[in-house]
C-alpha cells in the first residue's frame, strides 16, 4: 500500500462497504432522532405531532431513570470485574499441561455457545430457583434457608448470569494471549529469582495488558445493552431494582407503546454509551497502541 495508485485503488475498493455501514448506522440513528421529537404513541397512531423536548423531559423525569443508569453501570462493572479476574485465573489454569486438555478447554468455552435467554432460563429454573434450584438444595443440605435470588438480590443475580456467559470469552482471549508469552522470558525471570507471584505481576500481567483491554472494550459494548437475561428472569423488578437503561427503553416502547419516549431514551443511551466509551478509551486505550 505504498504508491498513490494502490492507495486510490484501496479507497475505491473499500468505498462500498464503508458506504453500506454508514447507511446502516445513519438511517436508524436519524429515525430514532426524528421520533424522539414526535408525540407518537402506538395506542393513538393517527395523532402524531411535534413534541419538542417533551419526550426527553418525560424520560428524564421517569422515577426509574437514574436507577436504571446506575444499574447499567453496576452490570457492566460487575461483569467486567468477574470475567477479567476469573478469566485470568482460568486461563492460567488452562495454560498448564493437564490430562484431557482439549476436552477441558471445550467444556470451559461452551457457555458462550448457549444463547442468552436459554442460559438465563436455566439459571432461573434449575440453579437459582428457591424451590427446586441447585443452590436451594445445597442450602437445604446445610440446613439453611434457601435464598430467593431474584427477589432478594435481583441485580446481583443478573450480574452472575451475564458473567457466567461472558467468562468463556474472556478466558479464551486471555488464554491465547498467555500462550504467546515467550518461554525464554519466563525462564529468564525464573533465573532472575522471580517466584510465581512476581512472574505474574511483572511479566504475565503486563503481557496480558492488551488482551485485557480488548476484553474490556468488547464486553462493555455488549454489556451496556444486556436485555434478554433481565426479560426472562426478573422482568426488571422487583420494582425497578434490576432495570437497566436498555430494559427501561423496552418498557417505554413496548409496554407503554410510547415510541417517542422510547426514542428519546435511545438517544440518551447513545450519548451515555459514548461518554462511557470516552472514559474507557482514556483509561485503557493506551494499551492498544504499542
Amino acid at each position, binding site marked *: 500500500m505504498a504508491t498513490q495508485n494502490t492507495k486510490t485503488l484501496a479507497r475505491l475498493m473499500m468505498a462500498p462497504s464503508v458506504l453500506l455501514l454508514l447507511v446502516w448506522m445513519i438511517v436508524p440513528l436519524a429515525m430514532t432522532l426524528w421520533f424522539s421529537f414526535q408525540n407518537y404513541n402506538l395506542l393513538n397512531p393517527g395523532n402524531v405531532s411535534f413534541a419538542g423536548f417533551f419526550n426527553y423531559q418525560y424520560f428524564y423525569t421517569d422515577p426509574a431513570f437514574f436507577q436504571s443508569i446506575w444499574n447499567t453501570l453496576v452490570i457492566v462493572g460487575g461483569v467486567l470485574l468477574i470475567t477479567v479476574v476469573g478469566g485470568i485465573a482460568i486461563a492460567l489454569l488452562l495454560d498448564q499441561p493437564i490430562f484431557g486438555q482439549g476436552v477441558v478447554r471445550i467444556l470451559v468455552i461452551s457457555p458462550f455457545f448457549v444463547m442468552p435467554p436459554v442460559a438465563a432460563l436455566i439459571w432461573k429454573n434449575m440453579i437459582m430457583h428457591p424451590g427446586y434450584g441447585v443452590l436451594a438444595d445445597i442450602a437445604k443440605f446445610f440446613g439453611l434457608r434457601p435464598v430467593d435470588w431474584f427477589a432478594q438480590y435481583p441485580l446481583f443475580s443478573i450480574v452472575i448470569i451475564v458473567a457466567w456467559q461472558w467468562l468463556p470469552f474472556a478466558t479464551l482471549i486471555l488464554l491465547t494471549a498467555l500462550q504467546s508469552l515467550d518461554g*525464554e*522470558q519466563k525462564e*529468564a*525471570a525464573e*533465573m*532472575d*529469582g522471580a517466584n510465581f507471584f512476581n512472574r505474574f505481576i511483572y511479566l504475565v500481567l503486563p503481557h496480558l*495488558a492488551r488482551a485485557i483491554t480488548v476484553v474490556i472494550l468488547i464486553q462493555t459494548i455488549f454489556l451496556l445493552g444486556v436485555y434478554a437475561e433481565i426479560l426472562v428472569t426478573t422482568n426488571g423488578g422487583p420494582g425497578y431494582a434490576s432495570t437497566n437503561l436498555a430494559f427501561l427503553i423496552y418498557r417505554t416502547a413496548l409496554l407503554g407503546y410510547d415510541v417517542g419516549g422510547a426514542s428519546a431514551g435511545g438517544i440518551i443511551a447513545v450519548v451515555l454509551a459514548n461518554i462511557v466509551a470516552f472514559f474507557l478509551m482514556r483509561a485503557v486505550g493506551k494499551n492498544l497502541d504499542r
Partner: protein
Amino acid sequence: MGSITLKNVSKVFGEAKVIPSIDLEINDGEFVVFVGPSGCGKSTLLRLIAGLEDVSGGQILIDGKDVTQSAPAERGLAMVFQSYALYPHMSVRNNIAFPLKMAKLDKAVIDKKVTDAARVLNLTDYLERRPSQLSGGQRQRVAIGRAIVREPSAFLFDEPLSNLDAALRGTMRLEISDLHHQLKTTMVYVTHDQVEAMTMADKIVVLNRGNIEQVGSPLDLYKSPRNLFVAGFIGSPHMNFVDGAYAQSKNAKTAGIRPEHLNLSKDSGLWTGTVKVAEHLGADTFLHLDVDGIGQITARCDGEFGAHHGDKVFLTPDEAKLHRFDDKGIALRA
C-alpha cells in the same frame, strides 16, 4: 568462585536419550565453550546446568555443593538467552534492575549497580528506552547487563550471537572476551559456530549426539583432534579426508590434511587437481579442487597465488602436519 562439576549427568526426553552420560569439570574463571552440530545436546546440557531442565540421572555440583535439585535462582548462575529474553514492557534500566529487585536489594544499591553495569556496557544513554527501541547488539548488551549485576558465580550463554549480523557478531565476540578478562568469572558458552569456539574459549568441549568427543584448549583440538569428528568439526575450512592407497601408505585407514597444510605449485607436486571454485578472500584464497584419484579437496593458499576455474595445479601435503585415523575413526599417534 565458580567451579562446576558434572558427574554422570544424563537427560532423557520420553524415548529419546539426548544425553547418555556426561562427566565434566569446569574450573573457576574458565571460559568454556560447548560446541557441536545442531541437535547434539549442547543447549540441553547448558539448561541442565542452569536448572531449567531436570536431570534424569547424575549430579551437578557448583563450588562443590550439590545443586542437582535446586531451583534455577538458587544456583547463583546468570544466563543470557538466544532471543535475549528481555522484558518488553520494562525500560532498559528496569530490565537490568529486575534480578536485584527480586533479591530485595536497597533502592540506592540497585541504582548504583545498574549505573555501573550500564557504563561498562556503554548503555548509559539508553537506560530509559524500551528493548524494542534498541538494535540487536544493544539488546544483547542489556541481556549481558542483566546477567552481570547479579554477580553470579558463573555466566551461561546460549548461542547469544546467532541473531546478529556477521560484523556485529565479530564485535560482540571481542566484547564478551574482554568482559571475561575484566570479570574473571566462569563462563559457559554454547555455540554451533566453531569460529566463536576457537576465538573465545579457554577450553572447548566438542559434543556429538550427547557425548563429549573431546575436551581441550582450542589449539589442542586443532593440532591433535582425537577422532574424525573433532578433526572435521574444528578448523575452517574443514579438514580434507583422504582414504585409499595414500592413507594406506601412511599405515592408516584415513588420512586427514588441513587446507592450510597443502603446498600448492603450478609445475610439480604429489597430486594433480583441477580448480572448480576459487574463493578469493584477499589475503587468502580457498581453492576447491577436483584431485585425480582422490576426489574433492579444499586447499588454502596465498592470495597472490593466481588460480581460476579450470586451472591445473599441483598439491603436496605437508607430511609433518598429517593426521592419521584408524578404521574406527580414532586418531593414531606417531
